[in-house]
């Protein structure tokens, strides 16, 4: 079973939010959806799920038009996390509703998880803490037994211990039920440990899809330069993440041999390669913008 998103475009208030978005989701994978604030992650989820009508494009599920065939809709679960109607109901009432909405709703698992996390079954969700609300939404999402589960900032507000349990829950659900999960998040460090690949939403479209393994040419270094000023080639070929005096942490978007030779030269007192995470790849993808900001800041100073 494959979900194909083809040329989805969407304007909101005459502003293009999504333009020709294309990607595929396969059975049993966990994909991360990253992009800067306001990049259109929630709009993308809302458009795929049918909350919003796309201006152009289609969503295909096994060759069928997802938006035109309502009976396919229980194959996808998405609920806007912070603002939703579920908050005004108790888990008990929500179970009754979800049983009607999703034909494969797993009532036994739902009850077990509600009990496991000590959630009050008779209390309205809006009376829960922010973390408990987020946790509850994740439980409902997976209990739906929809093939595709879209989670928008699911770990937001969860404490470290619960977060680990939730991450474990997501992995277990994917393994046991072959569910496909898409997680929109700003927290790239969190995604690193969860996702198989990352979809980068940039300039109103999926700019690229990557996994850490696929980006061998992205490299991260910590180095100390010898002279008084930062060697110019560093700014030209990489994104500086941090700088304290002569010590610089930098991500190279396209690490070529020439950069390696320069780093091995006399301009540097100390050079150490660091492990690359999704966050570094994300930074590298926005290298040009980051450089432009740096220039602007320097002009202002």
């Amino acid at each position, binding site marked *: 079973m494959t979900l194909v998103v083809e040329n989805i475009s*969407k304007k*909101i208030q005459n502003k293009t939010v999504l333009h020709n978005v294309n990607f595929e989701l396969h059975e049993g994978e966990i994909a991360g959806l990253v992009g800067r604030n306001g990049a259109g992650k929630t*709009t993308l989820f*809302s458009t795929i*799920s*049918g*909350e*919003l*009508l796309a201006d152009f494009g289609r969503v295909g599920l096994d060759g069928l038009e997802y938006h035109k065939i*309502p*009976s396919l*809709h*229980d194959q*996808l679960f*998405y*609920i*806007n996390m912070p*603002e*939703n*109607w579920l*908050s*005004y109901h108790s888990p008990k009432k929500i179970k*009754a*509703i979800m049983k*009607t*909405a999703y034909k494969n709703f797993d009532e036994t698992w739902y009850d077990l998880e509600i009990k496991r996390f000590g959630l009050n079954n008779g209390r309205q969700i809006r009376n829960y803490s922010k973390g408990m609300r987020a946790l509850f939404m994740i439980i409902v999402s997976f209990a739906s037994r929809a093939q595709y589960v879209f989670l928008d900032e699911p770990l937001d507000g969860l404490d470290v211990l619960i977060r680990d349990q939730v991450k474990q829950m997501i992995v277990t659900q994917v393994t046991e039920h072959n569910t496909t999960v898409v997680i929109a998040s700003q927290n790239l460090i969190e995604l690193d440990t969860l996702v198989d690949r990352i979809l980068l939403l940039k300039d109103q479209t999926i700019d690229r899809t990557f996994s850490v393994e696929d980006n061998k040419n992205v490299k991260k270094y910590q180095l100390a330069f010898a002279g008084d000023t930062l060697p110019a080639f560093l700014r030209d070929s990489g994104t500086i993440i941090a700088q304290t005096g002569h010590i610089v942490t930098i991500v190279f978007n396209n690490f070529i041999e020439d950069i390696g030779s320069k780093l091995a030269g006399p301009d540097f007192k100390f050079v150490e390669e660091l492990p690359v995470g999704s966050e570094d790849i994300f930074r590298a993808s926005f290298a040009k913008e980051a450089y432009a900001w740096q220039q602007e800041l320097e002009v202002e100073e």
Partner: protein
Amino acid sequence: MRQSMKLYFVIKKSQFTMALLLGLLLAVVSLTSSFLWQNITVKYFNEQFGPLVSSIWILIAAATVLNDQIKHLETWLYTQNISRKQLFITRVILLIILPILVSSLMDIILTLITHPNSVCDIIANDAVSGVQLFFMASVMALVYTLIGPIWMKIMTAIFMLIVVISPILTVEKIDHIFHIKMFEHSDVLQTFLANVVILFLALIVFIFAGYLSTKISADTIDNAVRLHYFRWPVVIFAFVSLFITLMVGNRSSLTIEVVLNNMILPAIITVVTFVFVFKPKLKLTWDK
């Protein structure tokens, strides 16, 4: 369609129960007033029980639909195993037709218990008020579909009630619609036909609103008019409908002065509507 009805009913089960309890409470009041306090309570209450209950239920229904929008239930339902058209029809059936039918049924049963002789009058009365409520509900449904923000929905609904719904509902006989004496011989037939016309009109409005509901995306919720190609028609409608209403109510002879005077209020309303619909950004500055 069955899935849509089932899902919406399950979600709204408690509201349906509350509404039914309220209706039963009113039925008890009606019964007790008939048997115990015949000289104290108003006769009107017994006669208007059906229309009263259905009006209350439809008001609750209107509030329910607004609530769905506030709580984002509507947007979630768009993602469900039901189409937008099915959701629209479900709401019409569960929130409008069902209350009218159930209240009429309750009214007939109560009448059979209390005044069996007047059951035919009650049925006729309920049928007429049912058609009128159905027409009002159709216009409300159109307003609720096309207009975005809650307060604008309410204001537009009030405006429509004053300038569109009320004048149409005052048409009691078919001759009043066509301004010719077509059915002079029978008042009953005339009333029947007038109600058929209103019912037909309501169905057209419902079909139109249902069609629009399939074209409207959830992101337009903050727009005064949710479909951009309806913005100018809405502004023009505000002017024309109010102008006609004022002109029809005019008792004095038709002069240019009267016409111009009757244009003042419509012009103000049109400007206000235009501002809310198009949100023009006026730059008030002395700078060149």
